[in-house]
């Protein structure tokens, strides 16, 4: 308990003492990340090209695979963890994710709504023409 509290910089690999405690060379962490990322990427390409899956579900599956792979990159390449020394990094990331979600989902929602309202249905157009 002599160590002073210190935040960890984003992207900083685990310290030497931690690595020895785990018994892994730390290149091992990157290799796990690479293997997981390759599996997820290959699955994405398979999902986009297969006829075995229900068509309308494919984009959702691709989105889920992409988010999973982003998580793999964050954990294994950028070393973002849930540990107390990473709280600041995770909070900043959470804020970024919040803004991205609001911008992307909000744009899609508003623009879909707008394009629905911009084009009156044919019967309404006929009604308008009769005046």
């Amino acid at each position: 308990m002599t160590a002073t509290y210190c935040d960890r910089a984003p992207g900083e690999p685990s310290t030497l003492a931690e690595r020895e405690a785990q018994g892994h060379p730390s290149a091992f962490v990157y290799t796990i990340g690479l293997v997981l990322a390759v599996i997820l990427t290959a699955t994405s390409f398979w999902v986009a090209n297969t006829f075995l899956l229900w068509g309308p579900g494919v984009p959702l599956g691709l989105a889920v695979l992409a988010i999973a792979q982003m998580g793999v990159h964050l954990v294994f390449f950028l070393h973002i963890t849930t540990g107390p020394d990473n709280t600041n990094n995770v909070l900043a990331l959470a804020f970024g994710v919040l803004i991205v979600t609001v911008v992307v989902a909000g744009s899609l929602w508003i623009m879909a709504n707008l394009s629905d309202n911009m084009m009156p249905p044919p019967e309404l157009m006929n009604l308008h023409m009769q005046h």
Partner: protein
Amino acid sequence: MNIVVPIHDMRSDALPSISEAGPAPKRIVVAYGFWIFLLSDIVMFGALFAGYAVLVNATAGGPNGAALFNQVTVAIETACLLASSYTCGLMSLAINARHRAATYFWALVTFVLGAAFLALEIREFAHMIASGAAPQRSAFLSAFFTLVGCHGLHVTGGLVWLAVMMAQVAARGFRPAVERRLRCFSLFWHALDIIWVGLFSVVYLMGVAA
């Protein structure tokens, strides 16, 4: 390792709180500041993604994604960028170990893979423009070239940065300022790969599957 410490002990002497420990080392402050920049960059890409998603069907009678995208090229580009992210990680391990030859080697591999990605992307763009699918053809193509081109510009900037950093390592060695910049570079490079995951999933694979 499994000693249970009562709460009051931890507060009194074992772990000083952040305010008692004084300012964080520069290494952490710099990397955290760069992390915030990266997140703002990701927000910008989020806006470009939103624009692309809104305009993806606005092809104005021109070609759509399924007609334009070549999945083999995209797969090779993805492999190049993923492998270069991995070698960039190995480079930062070599930097931690103060191993100069390994640092140069992994930097060179990262650079070559990144340049291969960029060459493939430029070839793809040139091919599309030559076949009449230029940015001014439709709103979909404008959004496509803005989004993917912006990522390509980031990769170009990253390659220049990597070359500059290797020159700094050669001229100045692993002094703390150089090491901080190298750490920021590896953050940047990994973040670019994260953005590419979104790109190949949303733009290319959804475009082909639709």
